[in-house]
Each structure stands twice: as C-alpha cells, then as structure tokens.
C-alpha cells in the first residue's frame, strides 16, 4: 500500500479576534489552537472517514490538508513529497479537489454548470479543445443529462447540485477528493445516490476519498478506515468494521451508542453520554475528554495521553481503555 497523504505531528492555530490594544501593539496576536498533534496516513484509492462533532476541527483539518489554511507545526506530505518543497503546493492543488459542505454556495451563481465544471482546466492551464464536450462527459460521469450544462446553480435540486460539485471535483482526475459532509441536507432516499456514485468512482478511477461527517451511519457504509476527532485531537483510528464492532475509546463508544435507532425494539432507556463538547477556548487540561468520560481517573485530569498503537492498524489515545 502506498501512502497518498501523510500528516505527522500536525497542529493548526486560527487567529482570534483581538481587541484594539493587541491590534496596535507589535506583540504576538492571540491564537486559538484548533488541531493538535494529528498523525494520519491516507492510502491510495482508499475511502477514509473522519468523524467528529461540531467544533472538533474536522473542517479545519480538511482546509489545512488542501493548503487553504496554514499549519503551525508538523509535516504534510502529498504523494511522498513534503508540502514545503518548491512547487509542491501547486502539485497538491492539481492533484486534490474539495467538495464543500454547501454545494449551491460553492458554485458561482453567475456561471452556468457547464462553465463551472470545466473551470479547473482553465485555472490549471490544461489544454481543453472542446469545453462543451468535456462538460457533457463530466456530467455523464456523475449521471446527469447534458441539458444540465446550460443551467444556473439556483435551477438545480439539492441532489443535482451535489452531483455537479462531484463532477467539478473530478474534472482533473485528482488522486484525492475531500468531501465535507457530502450528504448534509439530502433526503435519505437521495443520499444513497451520492454515496453510491462516490464508491463507483473510487472503484473505477482509483480516486481516494476523505469523507468528513458527523453522520455515523454514512461513514460506516462508505469508509474503509476511520478516525475520530475530539477537540482537535485524534482519539481513535482503525478499520471501520473493527471500530464499530469494538470501539476502544469511551468517546467512540458513546458516539456509536448515541445514534438514534429506528428499530423500536432496540429503543434505549439509558443515556450513553452526558454534557457537551467543551469550548476550544477552554480546552480541558490533561485528556480533553475527561470532563465527560465514564472511566476518568485522577491521572486523566493532569496528564494528556498520547496516540498509541494498541492492535494492528488501530490506534487509541487513552490511559485506561484498550483491547
């Protein structure tokens, strides 16, 4: 297995809006640490799922991986090449694509679909003899009729807009597509269409997908391996089937148990987790999860655990849990 994208010890900060004094004085501006010590390897042609609640840093991680936001520490390597190498950023942009969370907002309202999905060729100065033919081919690839090329984004349904964004992401045959909440806002009868399309594209073209979602049932069906993020740190990684069958981290276990079950025979009476995700501004000391953890011991309040391999292919950040 070759590595497609490697992250090692990655941290990322976002600037905080300071007051007038900090803006005028030449001292360090206040920053909010969002991601901390992320080490992760995406393999070629694999679908990787990134799970976390709002405020866990999922979207920031995607932006940092695409070079849309800077990393404050650590290394990013795309296809074996560090991003700090000359010209590497350009090759990263050429070889990756993003499907944004809100498909309609990510399409220019003044551009017809045909222009929008062939714009990547112009941006990357790729020769394109017949723009119209390419637009029709890309639309066919995502199962849309040629007539869609002449439409404006507001004339598309939610499912069609998703497909158009998928077509645009695939335009330059990227090695990696990052899909941020690919089924958000879609009805359950339509979301299967998008997930099936992504899995076909993976099989036919070897596209690697990073799917970011808070919807566990979507991740469970599409991803081969998953990583769970809590307050900007990875708490558990491993093959999807194994993690769902036997979650090690207490947070992973409570996430899985929290998913409402449509089967009334399996209705739950207890509560898997209490409290809410703390603010990044007040990141708990020690293990971030200790404020809500059923296992928390005194050491968890002071000492942050590190991510360690606990079984082949499975890593865990916890002092107490394990296989």
């Amino acid at each position: 297995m070759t590595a497609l994208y490697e992250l090692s010890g990655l941290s990322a900060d976002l600037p905080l809006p300071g007051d007038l004094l900090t803006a005028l004085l030449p001292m360090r501006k206040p920053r909010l640490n969002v991601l901390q010590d992320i080490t992760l390897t995406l393999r070629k042609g694999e679908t990787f799922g990134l799970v976390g609640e709002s405020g866990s840093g999922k979207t920031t991680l995607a932006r940092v991986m695409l070079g849309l936001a800077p990393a404050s520490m650590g290394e990013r390597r795309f296809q074996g090449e560090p991003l700090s190498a000359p010209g590497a950023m350009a090759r990263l942009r050429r070889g990756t694509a993003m499907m944004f969370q809100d498909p309609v907002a990510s399409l220019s309202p003044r551009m017809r679909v045909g222009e929008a999905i062939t714009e990547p060729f112009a941006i990357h100065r790729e020769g394109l003899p017949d723009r119209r033919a390419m637009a029709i081919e890309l639309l066919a690839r995502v199962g849309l009729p040629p007539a869609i090329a002449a439409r404006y984004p507001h004339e598309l349904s939610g499912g069609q807009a998703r497909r158009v964004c998928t077509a645009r992401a695939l335009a330059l045959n990227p090695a990696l597509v990052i899909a941020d909440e690919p089924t958000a806002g879609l009805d359950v009868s339509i979301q299967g269409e998008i997930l099936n399309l992504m899995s076909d594209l993976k099989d036919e073209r070897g596209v690697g997908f990073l799917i970011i979602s808070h919807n566990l049932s979507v991740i469970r069906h599409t991803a081969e391996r998953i990583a769970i993020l809590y307050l900007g740190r990875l708490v558990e990684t491993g093959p999807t089937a194994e993690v769902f069958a036997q979650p090690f981290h207490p947070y992973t276990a409570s996430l899985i148990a929290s998913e409402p079950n449509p089967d009334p025979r399996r209705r739950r009476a207890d509560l898997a987790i209490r409290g809410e995700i703390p603010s990044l501004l007040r990141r708990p000391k020690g293990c971030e999860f200790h404020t809500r953890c059923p296992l928390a011991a005194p050491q968890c309040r002071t000492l942050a655990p590190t991510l360690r391999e606990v079984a082949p292919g499975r890593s865990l950040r916890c002092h107490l849990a394990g296989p």
Partner: protein
Amino acid sequence: MTEPLLQVRDLRVAYGPVQALRGASLNARAGEVVGIVGESGCGKSTLAAALIGLPAPGATVSGEVRIGGDDLLALPEPARRRLRGERVAMIFQDPMTAFNPVLTLGDQLIDFQHRLAEPRAAKRGRARAMLARVGLPDPDLALHRYVHELSGGMRQRAAIAAALLMRPPLLVADEPTTALDVTMEAQILHLLRELRGEHQGAIVIITHHLGVVGELCDRVYVMYAGEVVEEGTVEEIYHTPRHPYTRALIACDPAHVAQGQGHLPTIPGRVPDLAAPPAGCAFAARCPLASARCATPPPRHRFGPTQVAACYAVAP
C-alpha cells in the same frame, strides 16, 4: 376510547398553485407520542404550522384542526391566540430564532405567562423550576442570559422549557434535534422521553429522521407529497410496513442496511410537482408495484386495528 386531544380532518393547504397539503387526516390522544415522518416537500412543515394555527400568510386553508373540541382554523385570531400556549405549544427546529435576542431568557419566560394573575416572583420561580427540570445547569444564572450566550443544546432545552411552561395538553415539536450533534441529540431525546411520562397530554413530533421516530414515538404517520400514505404503531411501521413508499424509505436508511453491503438502496425518480399533482397515487411514478389502476386515488386499506395504508397493491 376517549376523544382524541388533536383531530385533524381533511386538511388542505395551498400556496397559490402549489398544493402543499392535500387532505391530511390524523389524530393524537392524551398520553401518546405521535410521529409525522416524511422527506422534504411532503408537507411536514406546512402541517406543523397548521397545528398551531399559524399558516403562512397568503396560504389557502380548508379542513379542521380540532384541539380539545375547538376547531383552531374556524376561530377568530384572538381566540386562536388564547389557545396557543394554553392548549398547544411548539418546539421549533431552530431555537435561536424562536427566542427574542434582545431580552434575557428569564424576561421571556415570565412574559410567556402573561395570562396568569400572579406576582412576577411566582412566575420567575416557575420559569426557574422549568429550566431546572429540562436540565439547564445553574438555572438562576440562565434566567439572566441572552439566547446567544447559550450553546445549541442548552438553547433547545430552554425552548422545551418555554413550550412546557403553561403545561399545554398538546406539544408539537418540529424537527427538535435536527440542528444538534449526535451526543446532544441523544440527550434531548432522553429528556423528551422522560417528559412524556410527566406530561399528561399528547406530543406530536415532526421529523425526517427514522431514528427519532424509533426512539420516541408510539404511533407514526408517513407522509408523501402532501398526503398521509400510511399510519400505524411504530412497531408496525418499522417491522411490517405495507405502503411501498414506507418500505422504500426504511430500506434506504443507512442505519437499516447491513454493514459492508456495497451499494445503498435509493428511491429512483423525484417527488411530483405539487403545482400539478397526479390525480391518482402520488408515489406511482416511483413505485415498483404500480399498475394502470394507480392513476385513480388509491383506497385506504386497513391492516388490523391500528395500521392503514393507501395503496391498491397491498390489499390485506
């Protein structure tokens, strides 16, 4: 059997040419949690608005919405306003916009009790007790907070407290957990489950999420294109669905599909245009069992005492 607390009869709501609700009938008894489930465009939100007598301006409404005997739609607005809060209250999907941003939570919860002839301190005490009941940590402090100072989950708890404040017999919740993360969703569902035991009335939950229905409801109405296509107990709807749409909807839910199955099932086709709805079964164009007779309105077949499905093909 007692008279249902909520009776909706042949409710029709149109926005200009668009017929959003096309003859929906349903009821809810005291002590029951009733789910209304459907996908976008099925008329769920239109129904929710009609249940509290607040149809969108310009909508054409016909039919009955009886709450404890009074037809909400036939009453003049002042009488309708009196029923809201006293007999029916709503938990909205987005609690941020359901509260006034420039008043503290305490001031609003006191205002909501304006019909009670009690001293302000007593109203404040009731507001505080209700906030404590729905699990807001430090309710005294919460009374002084503005809505933007609360997290999403706390806001939804406050919205539930506001709805329960006047102890209305009918509580309508429109997508009460859609805006929340899964761990917070589980906590709000748990709270609603606890409250249903204390609350003497009926709760109507409108949602697109089958998981919410499975966790909370006793009976379910499945809606498609402005009509109720199937009703039954939650057990019947999930384990022996009759209508082809209900079956397809449950089959599509990723939580239902076994893991590792390559492709997820989908429902091919689109919801019909409600400006020109089909004369017969609205689902016929997407239905695997459809035949020529589906061009006329399907009969409502009864399966046992509680389950009804509107379909030609699934005769009992």
